[in-house]
């Protein structure tokens, strides 16, 4: 097992997680430099969220090590968490709190200085067009507003590592553009971002490095040109590359138990 690189923003080595007999994550290793934008692509149940939850400190790994800016998640979980923000695919807000009250609570959790928190809250709410609804309860928010409020909560403590699980699901084009711009801005400021998404265009446009994950293993990793070369599909779209690689991985299993559509489908 290699020692974590203290210069890395994130160093994941041979990560393994089992849920009963099922191996959800199978010896995954990731190495990210500060300011990197990393895209994790995979089908449902491929192991993306489990990996992210382990990095965020929500799940303990069975094997392997995770280190964030040189701090090990097992040795110093609170130190790691103070640098990390986790945004799950389903934004879990407090329905009975207003957007402002929610941000206030998050500042309390991360011990953000009161005046600094107020300034950041105003900046984020204005940036995300939530300023006018800051005193409305989250229960009345649309999906996009909820996602943006949760994103403001993830950014208000100025994390060094952002873990975003499907942050664009359910967002309309305008809101998605806002969020994309904000994320790019954060990487320019030095934040490291790991993003999972099903939308290939988003991964291709935003991420410098893309990893394709299937059955808990990383099948390929690199920029788009590297992935095309790996799949031996020059000039193909990321979607084609992704499907081909995943299909190759699953081909044996599919052959063993085929499920053809019946005659009811014309």
């Amino acid at each position, binding site marked *: 097992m290699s020692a974590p690189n203290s210069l890395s923003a994130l160093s994941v080595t041979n990560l393994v997680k089992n849920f009963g007999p099922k191996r959800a994550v199978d010896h995954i290793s990731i190495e990210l430099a500060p300011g990197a934008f990393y895209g994790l692509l995979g089908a449902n149940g491929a192991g993306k969220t489990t990996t992210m939850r382990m990095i965020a400190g929500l799940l*303990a790994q069975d094997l392997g090590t995770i280190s964030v800016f040189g701090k090990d998640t097992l040795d110093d979980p609170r130190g790691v968490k103070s640098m990390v923000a986790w945004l799950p695919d389903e934004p879990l807000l407090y329905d009975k709190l207003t957007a402002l009250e929610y941000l206030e609570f998050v*500042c309390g959790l991360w011990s953000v200085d009161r005046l600094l928190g107020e300034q950041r809250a105003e900046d984020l709410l204005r940036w995300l067009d939530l300023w006018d609804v800051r005193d409305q309860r989250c229960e009345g928010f649309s999906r996009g507003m909820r996602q943006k409020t949760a994103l403001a909560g993830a950014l208000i403590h100025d994390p060094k590592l952002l873990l975003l699980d499907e942050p664009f699901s359910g967002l309309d084009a305008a809101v998605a553009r806002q969020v994309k711009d904000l994320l790019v801005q954060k990487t320019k400021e030095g934040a490291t971002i790991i993003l999972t998404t099903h939308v290939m265009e988003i991964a291709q446009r935003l991420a410098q490095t893309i990893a394709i994950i299937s059955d808990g293993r990383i099948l390929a990793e690199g920029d788009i040109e590297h992935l095309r070369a790996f799949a031996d599909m020059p000039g193909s779209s990321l979607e084609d590359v992704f499907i081909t690689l995943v299909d190759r991985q699953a081909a044996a299993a599919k052959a063993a138990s085929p499920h053809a559509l019946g005659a009811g489908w014309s």
Partner: protein
Amino acid sequence: MTQNAQPLFARPSLLHKPGTASWLIRNNIRTRLRSKSSASRLQATGRNIVLLLLLGYAIAELGGRIARALAVLDGDYEYPPYLLNAGIMLSAFAISLLGSSLISAYSVFTDRDDLDLLLASPLPPQRILTARLLQSAYGAALTTTLIGTIAYGYSIVTVDIRFALIFPVLMSFMLINLAVSFVIARCLLLWFGLRRGRTIAMVAGFVVLICGVLVFQINSMISSQSGKAILAETFGPGFEPSLIALLTPIGRLAFGQGAETLVLSGVAVAVFMGVGAFFWDRFAADAALMAGQSQHIPSGRKTSKIKFRHAILMATIIKEWRSMLRDPFVMVQVATPLVSLIPMAIAIWSLNQPSAVLKGQGLPEGTLSIIIGFLVVMFGGQVAGTLAWTAASIEEAGDLLLSSPADGGKLFWSKALATAIPSFVFLALSMMIIGLSDPLAALLGLGVGSIGLACVGAVEFLRPRPARRVKMTQRPDRSVISIILGALFSLLWATAAAMVIGGQGFWSLIPMSIGIAALIFVWASSPKSVVWLARSPKVGAAGGPWRA
């Protein structure tokens, strides 16, 4: 697909043909039944039994009044005239029923669970409305049948069919009650929007229900000039005449005067159908409002300046209090035991009046403090349990807490304090009443009561049951074991508090010892894999969030 495989879908029955209102109702009832855990089903059954007992009690009491009034008119009854009294009682009962049905009517009318799916299907929106109205009518019929069981039973015992014939009369009243409830529910939806309308419906329904009960009881006590009137006349020698007297006039109406019954039933059905027809063409617009396509925007909403509190302890306490205070369901659950104290307090007060003492019905000296102490700890325990349950089991953003560097101990204690402070304030204020006559007893009662409330709260924190706030009104997920344990602890510590207040300090050690031993047992047997934060099954594992 194999040729001889069983069909995937059940064959449509004649009654529930796909797409019909009855099919929608069946689907709704089936999904609701299946969505409930066995514990909450048991809870619901228990609640229904208690409700039925209360209704039976109220009906028996009310029946006595009506019977006497009617009998006096007939001139064959020796009781004094009670006509006005009976009218007030009947009104109070009807008001209570209206309050309770308003809550359920709003819930059924504005149910959004599958609204989008249904509206997206080719079914006409009116059929969805029909299913909802009929589903409520079905519920009313079920309740009526259950209440009518008393009459059926009596009919069998007395071999007198009149008692069984009250069903159409009761059902008619229920239908009219439902129709009025639906009209009010729709008005609330239109005037206040979906969420505020729900809050207002719940609060108003609860207040109206309690008002009805209070009017009922206070009127009973005033008219009989005795705090013991209800118990004495209901379960004493007057019970049977009361029951017979309630049922006889209604039975007579159904049996001897069929035309009137028919007219009443016809009017009820017409009113109900009239409401349905009124809603018929408006439902599509109402559904759009429910689905948020035309959001009701409250006017005059104030905006606040940003002012953050820094400390995590205070921030979490404030967050919990905000969530509780803004949740009508929690407030109703908290208010119920507190409001239940009012009639008891009135009864105790009346028994302590000089007139009652002169009549030999008064309480011995010091008994009042003991009773108050017992009741306050008992009901305070229920409040503490409910608040602790919401704080321990309902955590909407568990991932947020777990991914933060905040100290788990601080979060835990801030949640515990958020639930303990209101219960303690209630206890302290109540004990001040005792303190007016005996400060030492009040102080001791406060001490013992505080430990009791802490024990009840601890049960909920030791046995959390993850639940979602948005689903609470439809599917309370509270652990039935925790409810039973909470009631047990409340009883034990209320007994101990009453004994301490009554000067039996030594003997109070017995319930206190049992209470402490039981808490240790609960702690030892609590599932260690689950900690107080919901949605965090892996917390506590090696390297988990709180074990740094």
